[in-house]
């Protein structure tokens, strides 16, 4: 299972498709709000990987990461954002569970590399 957290429906649609193109082993669950993703995680669901957007209404990516860290959740997170601000990239590095920062769009090649790294393919 792979979680996509992005308030943009289209993004979720595209990224779900891209993931399915690379591997059919990993079903995708897409959330349009970080709160919902946290609830699902709290309910005990354990995805293999989370792709997280930064700019979202109410709870943004950073807020999510803060709560996520408080709860010591073990799942690797990849930031997936259209931000090209270096500050964001630097900030993401301060979170232990963040393994990478992907500048949208998520392309097949990049995803393949990540899944390989995570031993998911």
């Amino acid at each position, binding site marked *: 299972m792979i979680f996509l957290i992005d308030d943009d429906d289209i993004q979720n649609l*595209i990224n779900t498709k891209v993931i399915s193109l690379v591997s059919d082993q990993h079903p995708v669950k897409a959330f349009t709000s970080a709160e919902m993703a946290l609830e699902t995680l709290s309910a005990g669901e354990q995805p293999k990987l989370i792709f997280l957007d930064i700019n979202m209404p109410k709870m943004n990516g950073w807020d999510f990461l803060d709560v996520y860290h408080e709860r010591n959740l073990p799942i690797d997170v990849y930031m997936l954002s259209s931000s090209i601000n270096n500050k964001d990239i630097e900030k993401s590095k301060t979170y232990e569970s963040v393994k990478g920062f992907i500048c949208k769009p998520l392309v*097949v090649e990049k995803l393949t590399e990540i899944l390989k790294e995570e031993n998911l393919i």
Partner: protein
Amino acid sequence: MSLYQPTIVGSTAVSQYCSLFDSNQNPILLLDSIGEMVYCNQSFISQFGETKEDLLEFNDVSKVWDQYTTSIFDGEKEGVLYDEVTSMEFRRLVLNDEVFCMVSLPTHAKLTLLTSGTKTNQISRMASADQELINSVLDNAPDAMLVLDYDNQVYVAANDRAEQLLGYSVEEILDLKLGELSPGLMKSGEIGAEVATKYLDSCIKSGKRVIFEWQVRHKNGTLIPCEISVFKLPTQNGTYVRTSILDISFREDLEKRIQQTRKEYEENVDEAIKSQREDQLRAFVRDSPIPVAMLDSNMNYLFVARDWVETFPTEFGEDIIGRNHYELNPHIPMRWKLVHKAALKGNAQGMKRDKYKDRDGKDAWCQWDVRPWYLDGKHIGGIIIYAQNITEDVEAENKMLEQERKFKHFFNSDSIGWIEIKAPQLLDVIRQDPDLDFRKIAEFHKSQLGTVLRYNRKIADIFGLPIDQVPEEFEPIRYVVEGREELAGKLFAAVRDNIESFDGEIVIENKYGELRNLNVNVHFTLAGGSGEILYGVQDVTDLKESVKALRESEERYRTMFDSNSLGVIYTNYGQGMVKINESFTEIFGYTEGDMQTLDENDMLLPEYHDLNRQITEDFRTGVKRYISVEKEYKRKDGRKIIAQTSSSALYDDSGLHYGNVTIIEDITERKTAELKIRKQNEELKKINQELDQFVYSAAHDLRAPIANVMGLVKLIRIEEISETAQHYLALQEKSLAKLDEFIKSIVDYSRNSRLDIAKDEINLDEFVNEVVDQYRFSENAEKLKIDIQVDQKGKFISDNNRLSVVMNNLVSNAVRYMDVEKDDCFLNIRVSSDKDMAKVQVEDNGIGIEQEHLESIFQLFYRASSNSKGTGIGLYIVKETVDKLKGKIDVSSEYGKGTTFTVTFKNFLGVKSKKK
């Protein structure tokens, strides 16, 4: 009046007592106990009349007269009453057990001035201190004097001498328009009023006394040649100019007369001599209106003019023909005899003014001319002497010059004191015994040093004389503690050698026990000396001390005092003295006069008073001797100024803190500008931050939909669609990629131009690999063989963001423009760094750049061809960013073969960050 009247109390006979006032300059009256006038002095008679009623014609006098006299006679008031409006002084006297009231009056002119309606208004406009100043100026003037209210262009005061000279009464003068005294066109061809205005302005501008020759128009229209001296009075309010007028017509007349006489004589003599007729000569000589004598070659008189015997009388009266010139005039000096000899040899000589001793041994002056006459046109028969006695003229001129000098001396400045001493015995003693040791004068002839006739107010101040000091009993010599012998020596030498004035320095101990350094300027009031000696006295104690203080405080203060832009204020607490320089006046608007009643605290804004107190305390205790601090002041015109001040404490020999020197620099403008800039800077910073935030959000928000579309396009292309659709979608994808890159570039550019340079420590190996990794999945990237070699020596500090903008652009260019036709596409990145800089070389074998474009590739929106894949902004940003990082970028390229960019970046190691 500046002279103090002797106060005489006791039972002297009234008449005897009154006679003391006979020659007093002030009008004085004596009233008996029923208020009737029993005596008035000469001055009163000449100025007012012979009855009390003449005086009571003045309204202001009659209004207060009864009140004062009653107070005096009722015995309630002892001593003296003074009326401020009229300047009258009422004094209670008891003579032979009878009570009298003595009234001292100002001069008629002054009383008129003080009490006349319009004048009173004018006067009341002035501060009372100013009025007193102006009055004292008038009172002391030996010459015609006017006081001009420069601001209103009217005369506000005049003395009686001005009345005499100008023919106007004081009232009339005060109503005069300024031009009415002007001569119109002057002899020199200049316009009188313009000349006066020129000198007046220069006087006011410079603050110095200005003297010029002018002509003044008398009431009857005649023009009087005169010397005008103008001086700006140190008044508190308004601009008042003291104008003194010295009548010099006498000087001109004298000159003219001498010239005229000489001309006539020369014309006649020449003619007579030319004619060579003895009878003509004789007739000429005898009838000559001027003193001429014709002598033979043995210096015996042949003919003399009637004037000759009158001018040079001898015991023989008119009967001198045939007698010898030298025998009759045994006093003829040798030099004249030589002149006669020369004339007998054919040389004529003349002299306009020659001093000699007359038969009585007195000094005399004459104008003379000696020339030969010829018997037959060839042989010299003797000489003709023309000799006019000009002693009277010279003496009159000397007297005038003396007056002039006296005048100048008295009124050059308000700080000079003067004493007039009559000392006929002293001069006699010196004259009788030319070899007299000067010490004897000082030691044995004290009593002969003379009697003080009068002295002025300044002298009373300097010597600390009591108000009732009788001039005759004032013996200045008793106060001298240093320099008495030297002064006496000089006096002695001056009398012996007929020198008219000399200077000396003495130290006196005054009645308060203070030591004062005095510069003394001694004049004999008349050449030859009638026994009057005038001592001009200048108190230089303060001057000396301030010079000393300044010297002690070293060159710094002197240069600062002289400096053009720094105000300096010197405060001496002990003497309550404040001195300022011109720049101080420029900065604050206060003059030295103003500063006599103000001190620094009065100008300081109240919030600085505590600070000043602290400074004074620190100076006093010696905790600090120098302090430099910013203060705010209020100018005379109320405007606030900010000043940088540096104060130094001054200590005397015993270590007592006695004063300060404060140097003040007006930094208002600088400060205001600084504040403005700081404010602008802060605003700019804020705007920059906001703009950064805006660009960031805008970029993000713009990119998000593009990413969506790109993703969707990719998804569509996976579906089974026609080849044409595939092609269109590929083009669409390319356009979107370009748009996306464009947005990124704009953000890069915006950030580079606005943000400060960050100082990040960079691991170059990691850094380069990170950049390159981003392009590994680009189109055709798999064909590119990338080789990275990094040689980093020590730390490298630079701006990480900017560096990555540069590297990203260079690498993406290499990827984008690779020559896919080639089998061995490569990208070699070579990086080396040391403590000074990092060098990055990016070499590819891509399509290369045509030579013609090479120079322009760093320009904004420059694209080598219309089908270029780039936006035309990338390399421009690279260049801008490299410049910002104080680096350099070079490019070499060969079309079809490849391109190499070489960039150097400054290592900011050791450069301190500007941010706090």
